[in-house]
């Protein structure tokens, strides 16, 4: 039994999305195990990051959360900057190649999650 065109397209989207998420987790963990000290060193004056820093002792799961948190805060710093929990000097002196990587990670996870959420809702409510 073969699939019709709509199913084929949807299936490739779903598979690409899930594979993308797994790849994303892999990249985050790679960053966590190779660049964690560097990242925390550059953000040591930011209480928003430092309150999350204990997570690095929480195994791969905790490290993933911490890298996700750092990437979210570096990409959208306004919320914490306004509350004074982030130091703008720290952000400015953050290595640009690392920052670009974190920003790309953040935007890609947003896209991947949006696709996944709409897909999941569609499946749950029986559209596909």
């Amino acid at each position, binding site marked *: 039994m073969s699939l019709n065109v709509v199913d084929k397209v949807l299936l490739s989207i779903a598979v690409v999305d899930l594979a993308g998420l*797994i790849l994303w987790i892999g990249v985050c963990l790679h960053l966590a195990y190779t660049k964690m000290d560097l990242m925390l060193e550059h953000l040591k004056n930011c209480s928003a990051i430092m309150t999350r820093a204990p997570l690095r*002792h*929480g*195994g791969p799961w*905790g490290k993933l959360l911490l890298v996700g948190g750092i990437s979210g805060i570096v990409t959208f710093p306004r919320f914490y900057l306004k509350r004074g929990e982030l130091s703008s000097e720290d952000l400015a002196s953050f290595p640009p190649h690392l920052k670009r990587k974190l920003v790309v990670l953040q935007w890609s996870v947003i896209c991947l*999650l949006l696709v996944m*959420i709409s897909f999941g809702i569609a499946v749950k409510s029986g559209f596909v």
Partner: protein
Amino acid sequence: MSEYGNVPKPALPNPPRKKVYRGVEPTDLHAKYWAEYPEAPAEKPAAAKAPAEPGFYIVQQVMPRSALEAALFDKPDGATLEKFTRLNPHVTGYAKPGQLIVLSDPNNPQCTREEALLMEAAQKVDAALKPMSDEEASFMVRYRSEIESILSQGSTSIGVGESIFAKNLEDVKTSLKEIEALHQKSFQRDGHLRSSEFFAERARLFAKLDRQLTGLTRKGIGFPDHPSLKSALGISSKSLVHHWSLAGAPGQIPGYATHTEGVARAAKVVKYGGWIGTAVGGGASYMKVQEVCAAGNKDACEKIKYTEGGNFVGGVAGGAATGAFLTGSTAGIICVGLGVPTGGMATLACGVIVVAAGSYAGGALGGATGEWAGQKIYEASK
């Protein structure tokens, strides 16, 4: 100079009327005591006079026994050291982080019951620490307050803070009742509330209440210091010594020992929780497959392998990625939107809950996506 020229002023331009005494100006007792003794615990005045009661110290890092003694006592004398050795048979070659060290004043022979309770508590703590490596134990000690606050959010465990909180609330309640009783008694006796006796008594009760309220806020954060024992033993002020009643020996107020088991578990949960969640999800999928395949329908068995495999992969990926995404600014924004103040434990707890709930939902949606994909792949492969 006044408008009439240089006229001398009368000594008393407005002679005071006979003034009814209406109590003294209110003073901010909280601010006063806080500024004066920011480190002092809210102790009842009577307890401070008694000879120093036994206390305990929590080892903060791995250190040999001699280093521990040097850190605790500035200049140890024979009697103190002898007592220290007798009270702490559980401390062998080196001290493990989290271990409870019993301390007692050698000049106070009356507290053997408390000492026995403390030693019992120390053994309990040791038993809880035994399965942990030194690294895990120091991790636990370092993040005790965080772990404990997470633990106390759970309905099953009563945190140390909570039990102390309850005890404090009881004290506050008693004080308020005393104040009420004083008002009633004075009014019935004198027919008014203006006697100096009443004011003096009320001021005393207010001061007491104020100290209790200070203690309430302080003790919510952690163990109070126990300075009188510290000075009696000549312990250097940088090590925190706790009063014996907080050690949580069996039958006593729940304290350190009662919750060490819970904390030890939570430290592992933080470390291995992700794996446990994954394993539970994987186990559930595996069991579903086993169940369907045991029923004997070959097609259904083949199909559920695809759908459950997809469900598991999607669930793990979706849950992990959603959790990591929410740990950034989003959890903070959600918590502020819910009206949780930023900073402190409330935010941490709110963040933990938002991230946990989010990754659960993400896992469910990812699982649904994966399951659907698995089903289509199965259909295509036929």
